[in-house]
């Protein structure tokens, strides 16, 4: 019923659009931000300053921005896909030339009090661009290797720029997000196998060209106890905090590892550890489940979409979110090297929160406009 109506009408009213927003998804995100607020309150030793209050403020602003983007017609995004992509690349170039240097890498662009990490934004813009490319393509065309060359180049350019910053973690995530779009578009299995094989061969060569601190992270990951007071310290202290939390945790504001500062960067990278120490396995597993729910929601939106462009965009954005969560949590549990990736919506950090909510805004736009007819597709429908 509803779908027929949406299909019929070319232009939806604002009220209709707002009505078709998945409000339960928004509530889910609010729940996550609430967890973040509580944990940042605890990280400050029981105070809304300096993190929790700003976190809440940013979330409020971010949600408004997300809803605004959700109202934007998906067809406008389709049209602007390539200009947006070029804008993203331009920002990456700009950051390489004028960016703030932090922790040995050029990543940030200072936009008058608001710091932007273009590499985060780039992932969303790349997803939109790739979705635009594959939107018109039949499975036969996707099977043609030559057809895959332009999107590969479009992927390679931002990946190379991010790698150059240097930000190995984000470069890899960008690559994987792009890979997810390629996969969703129907690129053959054996082609992925070919690329992965090539990477395995190239890995030793890449390792040689890595920065010392990146190599150190990889080495520390392989044997954290080898350097307990150096780079391995973070991971060891994080594992101690997780283990000390036990089944039910030490209680809110009671985590000794975090409250006594044994845990590094507890308001950003290691916020999950802090949560796990204070609320135990029960709390940590709940947050894990919450994140999984967001991911599954995203996939459901992707599957429900009636046009290929929306599907691909939704798939890419969902995978992007999943990778954030995975990298962060696996990192604090000592499963993968320390990467400086925050836990979306829970960690402190404006740029990450805004870019994640921009991504979800696009996702919601896909959901709101899941049944619109896109002209370019008509011939094939």
């Amino acid at each position, binding site marked *: 019923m509803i779908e027929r109506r949406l299909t019929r009408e070319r232009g939806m009213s604002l009220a209709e659009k707002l009505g078709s927003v998945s409000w339960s998804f928004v509530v889910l995100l609010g729940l996550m931000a609430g967890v973040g607020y509580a944990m940042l309150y605890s990280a400050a030793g029981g105070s809304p300053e300096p993190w929790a209050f700003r976190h809440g403020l940013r979330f409020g602003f971010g949600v408004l921005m997300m809803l605004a983007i959700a109202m934007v017609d998906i067809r406008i995004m389709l049209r602007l896909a390539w200009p947006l992509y070029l804008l993203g690349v331009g920002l990456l170039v700009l950051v390489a030339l004028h960016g703030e240097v932090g922790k040995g890498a050029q990543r940030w662009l200072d936009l008058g009090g608001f710091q932007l990490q273009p590499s985060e934004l780039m992932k969303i813009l790349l997803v939109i661009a790739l979705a635009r490319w594959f939107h018109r393509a039949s499975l036969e065309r996707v099977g043609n290797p030559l057809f895959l060359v332009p999107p590969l180049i479009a992927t390679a350019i931002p990946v190379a720029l991010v790698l150059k910053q240097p930000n190995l973690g984000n470069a890899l995530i960008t690559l994987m997000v792009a890979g997810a779009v390629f996969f969703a578009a129907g690129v053959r299995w054996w082609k992925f196998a070919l690329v992965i094989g090539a990477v395995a061969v190239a890995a030793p060569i890449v390792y040689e060209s890595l920065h010392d601190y990146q190599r150190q992270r990889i080495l520390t990951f392989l044997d954290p106890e080898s350097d307990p007071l150096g780079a391995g310290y973070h991971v060891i202290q994080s594992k101690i905090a*997780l283990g*000390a939390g036990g089944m039910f945790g030490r209680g809110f504001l009671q985590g000794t590892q975090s409250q006594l500062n044994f845990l590094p960067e507890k308001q950003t990278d290691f916020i999950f550890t802090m949560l*796990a120490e204070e609320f135990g396995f029960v709390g940590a597993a709940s947050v*894990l489940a919450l*994140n999984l729910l967001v991911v599954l929601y995203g996939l459901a939106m992707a599957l429900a979409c009636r046009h290929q462009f929306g599907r691909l965009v939704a*798939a890419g954005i969902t995978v992007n979110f999943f990778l954030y969560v995975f990298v962060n949590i696996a990192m604090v549990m000592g499963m993968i090297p320390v990467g400086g990736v925050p836990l979306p919506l829970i960690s402190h950090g404006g740029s990450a929160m805004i870019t994640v909510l921009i991504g979800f805004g696009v996702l919601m736009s896909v959901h709101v406009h899941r049944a619109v007819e896109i002209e370019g597709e008509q011939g*094939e429908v």
Partner: protein
Amino acid sequence: MRREQGRRAVFTRRMLLVGAGQVAIMGAMGARLYQLQVVESERYKTLAEENRISVRLIPPPRGRLTDRFGEPIAANRQNWRAMLVAERTDDVGATLATFAEIVPLTEADRARVERELRRRRRFVPVVVRDHLDWEEMARLEVNAPDLPGIMTDVGQSRIYPGGEAFAHVVGYVAPPAEADLDGDPMLELPGIRVGRAGLERAHDQALRGRAGSVRLEVNAVGRVIRELAREEGTPGQDVTTTLDAGLQQFAAARIAEESAAAVVLDARNGEVMAMVSSPSFDPSLFDTGVSAAQWREWTTNPRAPLINKAIAGLYAPGSTFKMVVALAALEARVVSPGERIFCAGVTELGDARFHCWKRGGHGWLDMREAIKQSCDCYFYEIAKRTGIDRIAAMANRFGLGLQPPIELPGARAGLIPTRAWKRATQGVAWQQGETLVHGIGQGFIQTTPLQLAVMTARLVNGGRAVEPHLTRAIGGVPAPGGSAGDWPLIGIPEAHLRLIRDAMAGVVNERGGTAYASRLPAEIGAEMGGKTGTTQVRRITMAERERGLRRQQDLPYEWRHHALFVGFAPSQDPVYACAVIIEHGGGGSAAAAPVARDIMAETLRRDPARRQAPPRPALQVAAAERSGR
């Protein structure tokens, strides 16, 4: 349409696959979380506690050392310090500048503070000035509002009220060296001191006490968050020594000009009432660290200020040994007390000539006169009759040649030679001429002033083998050996001892005695007995003897004789025994006897009649038990 459906089918299939993969990965992370948080939780909880809790030791106050009357000879002084905590002030430089206006601060102090501030974390207090006096403390307190970051506290430092007079006996404390680390964690504390010499070292365990501890919660940089538990330590025990501080001071002052040593014992039980060695040193210098120049001065000084000559100085006993020879001869029945032996001034044995100190000789002498006038020829004769091994055995019964069990580290055993000793160490047989030389306390024989005092005590206390000791009580618990009955007899007939005692009284109190000039002043109301001794540092050549160059003061200092005196008082009912040695003092009667006289007079002046030392608690208990029965 069919194409679109194909694409959508592929997309759906693949997304379900991706979703399944994501669920699987999340599940794996959940499993890992379960393993860390539930399965291995205990291990990590322990690690977290270790992170969080820091155990710190609280050093206990070190026990005091007191003399027999309870007067402190080693004590602790409150050391008021001003500390700076960098994080509590906005401007360290300004605070220090204000501080310097209130309490003087040297450039060196300032440089040290700045160096330490750079090295330590901002919340660790750094000592700005210590040993502040009361007025300086008051000024700092008044100006506290202008001195952000400055706080005051009190530590303890060791002081020695007796100073140099007690240095050799009491010893000193110093920061522990590698060798001092005996596993006691307290020794790792900054500012801790251990006894490094003398009684401070001998009783270090008792004086040290046991450290208390406090369990603190600390954060990752070591800042203390709060105190969790506190366990009080045990303060070090006070040690009551046998010394009489006033007598010790007097004796030290009396020999201060010389390189000398003196020991006063309670002859009845071996308590050391005074033990001095000169020159001395300031024991408090070790607390803060001795400068290289000071150390060089001490160690290269030929008078060896760091050596306790009373226990570690080895000297031939000279004529003070003659009583032992006489007793050995009496016991061997090779001479009777009344037998008279002729002294011609020289004794000949084969080709060798052995001179008496008196050129013309003493003529006919019995044993009492021989001791009184210290005739050498008499003792050449009876030593020859007795033999060295019997003399050595008698000497050993008087403690000579044996390690005295005194508490002080570094006491020497000296040497009493025997035939077997000479064969074993020198590979040649004992010569009879050597027996003669040893009969007057010369030759290989070596003794310490403490041993000579012990010998004298055993001569006059009825022949009890008292051993010298310095400890009356530790922590209020009396040390053994306080009464005469604690000591075994050495088996000398009382008649022999009475003869010796009488002869020694004659030495001091009769005309012709070698120490007649040093009898006690009449006001003391008691007489002293004793025996002089003069030992050659260097053999007098025949040429010198003929030239008549024999006046000691004409010789260079280091060639002059050592002067000795052993004595006791009162002569009728002896209580105290003493030994004095003045290195290169010349003669025993001229140099050592007057010193001994003064020390003994002072000892008697301080006698229990006027100043009774509290009896040992054990005796009180014993007396109470007796009266109870």
